[in-house]
């Protein structure tokens, strides 16, 4: 299986790097399209002359050979497909598109991005296969022309060997709630601080919220904590190295996730692998990773009362925390295993090739 990937970029995100690594480890050949040249020029140059635009014939030959040799083209982002659709058309190969989140459930709805939404509607039906990071994203894609029969939900894959169970239980007091993620609006930290306030003032618990991450919402979190009188209970650690993250997970009692827009958060899966019970808002695909009452509690999005109640219930029941934690670890190791993801991608590529051949 030879996969040509578009949209990997010079500094690929962790999930893309992992995907490539796991595919290669499973025996697939992965080539990466070097996308620095404007696609219109690439298209013209491939179709006509080879030296006019300053590229050597050898480079263009390599590009063409790559497009010819690959069994399947995999586009990591919808805008890559829109950009290269004319470049790939003459080679008549199946295209697989990844649908992850923002590009399908936010951007098309922003005023001023109507042309992006139109491009989605034009290009999505052309694909022979789709990789969706969650069932929720699959449903979003269907609103823009994704053909559900060609779609596969393939969950993120993580090397979880690093995220082990804690050797010792955390200190009983104070209740430590941990959150991990970019400090950005879509993680909903303001609601987390509101839930903490309720936990302290209404449920009478000695609790603190430790937030690992960095970003533009730092001031908002600090302001909200001060406004609600819980400044000394909200700790912003900034970005931490992996062993720092693991240490704090081991020192915490509960992992909280309040995102407003999400695929499936890696941070939650890592927390589950460390045996932490989870309280998560029902956003995006989060309830595909955490079942309410099995690995933790799933609350309505933005519902700080429900979040505080779920946290309080866990705080008062260490046995339930252990039960949820062990169930979460088992699910994380099973559902997000690298070998499983690679096999599912190979299966998707095979399906796309067959589907494309049938159409031809």
């Amino acid at each position, binding site marked *: 299986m030879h996969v040509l990937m578009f949209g990997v970029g010079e500094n690929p995100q962790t999930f893309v790097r992992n995907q490539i690594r796991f595919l290669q480890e499973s025996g697939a050949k992965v080539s990466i399209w070097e996308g620095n040249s404007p696609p219109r020029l690439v298209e013209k140059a491939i179709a006509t002359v080879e030296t006019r635009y300053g590229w050597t014939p050898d480079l263009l030959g390599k590009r063409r050979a790559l497009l010819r040799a690959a069994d399947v083209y995999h586009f990591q982002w919808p805008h890559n497909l829109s950009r290269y659709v004319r470049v790939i058309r003459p080679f008549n190969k199946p295209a697989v598109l990844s649908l992850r989140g*923002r590009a399908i459930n936010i951007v098309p*709805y922003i005023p001023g991005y109507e042309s992006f939404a139109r491009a989605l509607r034009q290009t999505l039906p052309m694909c022979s296969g789709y990789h969706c990071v969650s069932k929720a994203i699959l449903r979003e894609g269907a609103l823009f022309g994704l053909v559900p029969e060609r779609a596969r939900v393939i969950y993120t894959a993580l090397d979880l060997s690093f995220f082990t169970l804690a050797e010792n239980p955390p200190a009983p007091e104070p209740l430590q709630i941990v959150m991990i993620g970019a400090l950005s*609006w879509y993680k909903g930290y303001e609601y987390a601080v509101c839930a903490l306030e309720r936990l302290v003032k209404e449920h009478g618990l000695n609790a603190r919220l430790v937030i690992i991450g960095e970003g533009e919402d730092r001031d908002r979190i600090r302001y909200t904590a001060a406004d609600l009188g819980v400044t000394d209970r909200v700790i912003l650690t900034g970005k931490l190295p992996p062993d720092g993250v693991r240490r704090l997970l081991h020192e915490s009692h509960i992992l909280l996730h309040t995102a407003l827009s999400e695929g499936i958060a890696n941070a939650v899966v890592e927390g589950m692998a460390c045996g932490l019970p989870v309280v998560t808002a029902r956003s995006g695909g989060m309830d595909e990773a955490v079942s309410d009452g099995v690995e933790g509690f799933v609350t309505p999005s933005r519902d700080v009362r429900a979040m505080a109640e779920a946290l309080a219930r866990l705080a008062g029941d260490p046995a339930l925390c252990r039960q949820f934690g062990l169930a979460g670890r088992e699910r994380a190791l099973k559902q997000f295993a690298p070998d499983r993801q690679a096999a599912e991608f190979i299966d998707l590529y095979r399906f796309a090739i067959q589907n494309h051949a049938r159409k031809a």
Partner: protein
Amino acid sequence: MLRVITVAALDWRSGLEYGLEAVHRLTQRGTPAHYTIIGAGSFLEAVVVARREFALDGQVEILLNADEARVAEQVQQAEVFLLPCVAPGASHGLAAAVAIGKPVVAFDQAEVVAALRGYAAARVVPRRDTAALADALSAVGELAQRHISGGEGGD
């Protein structure tokens, strides 16, 4: 149909997600509403996500590049000026709404409270309490409805 308007910076301080949640609560109670948000800023995506989450795509209009005349026209047409600010520095448009006697519904953020002191047509509710915000909007809507009915009856 209750016409609600917010003129504010599109950033977190404006509390627009709370405003949208309040309008959602209002529509859930059976009060039809149209909500216009006028502003600019980096928080647009958050507003768009909240609008979708609360199934308000058809009822909420976001105007990004409205000039002063358009803003004045929109404020004039609305029945209530909603200001769900949670932090200072985001209460654009409030003075203009007050100047024309428009009813105002707002959170009790200190800067807004100071600006509304002595203004009889203001209803101020606790910060981040979207149920109270919806109640206040509903009360303004009922008053407006009574005013219209009274006007029709008198003709």
